[in-house]
């Protein structure tokens, strides 16, 4: 999936997608030199902002793990990234069938809470998965991604009876989703 590309989340059999998961995984880059043995912890955070007609209504992030309506759930803050490789270290689950009727867009973002840029993170990725069958809908590699501390990743928005996923993939800077609001708004 490329930047700006939109995927309808209608399934081939006519049923529509009911649950998506945004997964985020990373490892701290090993440091070379004098203090090489001291690992440096990197804390990336996944957030989801719920919009109704371009107004933010609710947000799910590490301080608010479940949207008030219960449709969007964060699996919990991970402060240091993965010890292994490849798995999601943080995930946000969206039950699209339960999203309140006025919410028309959900934007997913990734931030570096500890301030390192994505250049300093190893094996960092974020992806969107169809939670019902495990199929990956979109995947971004963040590592080596330049002097950025955040990314507006993608959004799911209502279209007709179902939902559509649009990849955004715009880099940004900020420590939490609040810092990203100005960068998010153009994509709504």
């Amino acid at each position, binding site marked *: 999936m490329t930047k700006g590309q939109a995927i309808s989340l209608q399934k081939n059999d006519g049923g529509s997608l009911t649950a998506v998961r945004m997964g985020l995984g990373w490892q701290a880059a090993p440091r070379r030199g004098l203090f090489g043995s001291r690992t440096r912890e990197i804390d990336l955070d996944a957030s989801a902002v719920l919009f109704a007609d371009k107004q933010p209504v609710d947000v799910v992030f590490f301080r608010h793990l479940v949207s008030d*309506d219960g449709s969007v759930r964060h699996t919990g803050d991970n402060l240091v990234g993965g010890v292994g490789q490849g*798995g999601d270290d943080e995930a946000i689950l969206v039950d699209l069938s339960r999203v*309140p009727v*006025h919410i028309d867009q959900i934007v997913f973002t990734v931030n570096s809470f500890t301030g390192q840029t994505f250049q300093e993170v190893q094996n960092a990725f974020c992806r969107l998965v169809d939670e019902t069958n495990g199929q990956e809908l979109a995947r971004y590699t963040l590592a080596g991604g330049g002097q950025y501390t955040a990314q507006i990743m993608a959004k799911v928005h209502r279209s007709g009876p179902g939902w559509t996923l649009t990849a955004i993939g715009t880099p940004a800077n900020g420590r939490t989703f609040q810092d990203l609001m100005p960068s998010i708004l153009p994509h709504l």
Partner: protein
Amino acid sequence: MTAELARGQNHPLSQARLEIRVSAGTPIVASATLGDENGKVHGVDWVAHPGAPVLPGLEVSKQAAAGHRLAVDLGAVPEAVHRVSVLLALPIGVGGPVRFGAVAAPFIAVTGLDGTEVASYTITGLDAESAVVALELYRRQGAWKVRAVGQGYAGGLAELLTDQGLPEAGRLAGGINDAVAQGLARSVQAPPQRTADGDRTRQTAAPAPGPDQSGPAPQAGSTPQGAPGPVPPHPTSPYGAPGPQPGYPAGPAPADPSTVTQPATPTAGGPVDYSHPRRQTGAPPSPPPTAPQARPGQPAQPVAGDANGWSMDERLYNQIWGMFEDLARNTAAYRSAVDFAESRMEKELDQALSDPRNRIGGQSDAAREVARGKHAQLVDQARASLDRDLAQLSAEAEVVEPALPPAFARWDNPVWHGYRVPMEIPMALRLGDLYLPESELLRIPMLVRLPLERGLWIDSGQGGLLDESFADSHELRRLALDTAVALAARLLAVYPTGEFGVHVIDPAGSGVQAFAPLVQTGVLATPPAPGAAGVADVLARLTQRVDLVQMAVRGGVPDSLPPGLDTAEQLLIVHDFPHGFDDRAVTQLRYLADEGPAVGVHLMMVADREEAAAYGPLLDPLWRSLLRLTPVPDDHLADPWVGHAWTYEPALVPSGSQVLQQVLARVAEARTRHR
């Protein structure tokens, strides 16, 4: 369509990817062996067990648990394997039951990945056996079938594995038990426990959903900048401490997060493996659906006790908490949508008014009409969605209410007519019902954990009451007393004989009539204390008791209490406060409120705060420390997730019913036998 198998019966399997769900009344070990076409198990690497949980196409849990979900992918099982046997065993040497005859019959089901049951089997008829071959999946002419086996072994896993032709059976059985014992030692055995975690500014990967997580009040920063953040009134949370987590027993039940949450692909060969390979307790699962997820438009049939838990009571408790959370969140979704619709309509109406082009002709009216139409449409949609959720929750409540044990049941529940004095303390007590204005007919039982962690305050004052029509303060006082008596009776009834004592302070004797059921049946520890002397006497005794127990506990010698000391929990009902109280008595009362709950002395104030106004702010900490309940419906309680103001309605005995007297008579009768 579920096939309920009897022993020996088989059933075809149309899917290769399956889940095998096991539930038992006690933690058990689940393992599986692979056999060749003769059923022979070739070696230890043909056995999936807690010490080596993963085989191609098969994964079992690493721990003993009362519920298991085994992931099976028959397509990934090696060609040479013709039989997969699912084994259950009781863990040895951990102090639990040692024979299946002593526990509830284990239930095992083969389900598809979406949770639909294909076949199920209840393993009955076991007695001295401590291990059993529950099911086997076997190839027959290129297709797989499942058979209910139910073959038990009194000699445990060792005998079972020997029977399957495994040469190293004894050693392997020992290894499995060691692995299980280690797992049990690491995990908390007790049912859900409250976490004492007060600081939740930044939550690490802990169980995500649950009343514990969002705390009593939304923190600063939890609403997005610029967002129309909801500004709920700030009612007191009934659950001052973080509540227990429905659906998340702290015990080892959901043993391996990867098997619980990602039943789809836990094994090699699946397309995506979400789980972190080297982490067991990292990002926790989304709440595992305990029932097959309902598809939109096709609600699942609700079942009582359809939640996690070690016992039926705990499952019902967790289910009620789940319903409570669902209702809170569904209503939040509805309110948020309606608020949005209203603010959008206002904005559009303003626009229509200020747009100069609209000044001529009927354009303005048309624009307003459109704005109103959009509002109505969105509100209708939101209401339809809420109604769908309410219908499902109501259906659930309809099956849950009749299934409740006395401690959780309303007084009009027939379970009270068959009341018998219990043998153990229940995990929680129903204080009343909770509801929201959007759904007045759907009542959520308000359950608090036992032993009580906070004292109770039945507010007999009119201040702050919604309903101003209670001009008759006499009537309100009377209702407050009835509420107090009904709660005290409920506490007496749900505790085992001799483990709960009730004392009454009624200095002016004005509650004689209301207290009559307690007095006449003789269930009080002491007769109601009259006058100032009575007050002083009761307070002195209870204060001394708190002192003694505290000293013993702090000194690390809880066994050295004086022999005459009644170890039962004590409830002190104080009526007409502060009548009959001098300064010393007030100080003692505050001491009891602060220190009592930790050592089993609880306070129930039936009081109007206004009447104690003379004490000024001195008593504020006392009132704050108590859970305020009202004798008439009042919306002052907040849920821990969203902070809605819920209307509390006390659990009162239906008028004209003698059930309370009957129950108390049983309590008294059991007590005389006990002595």
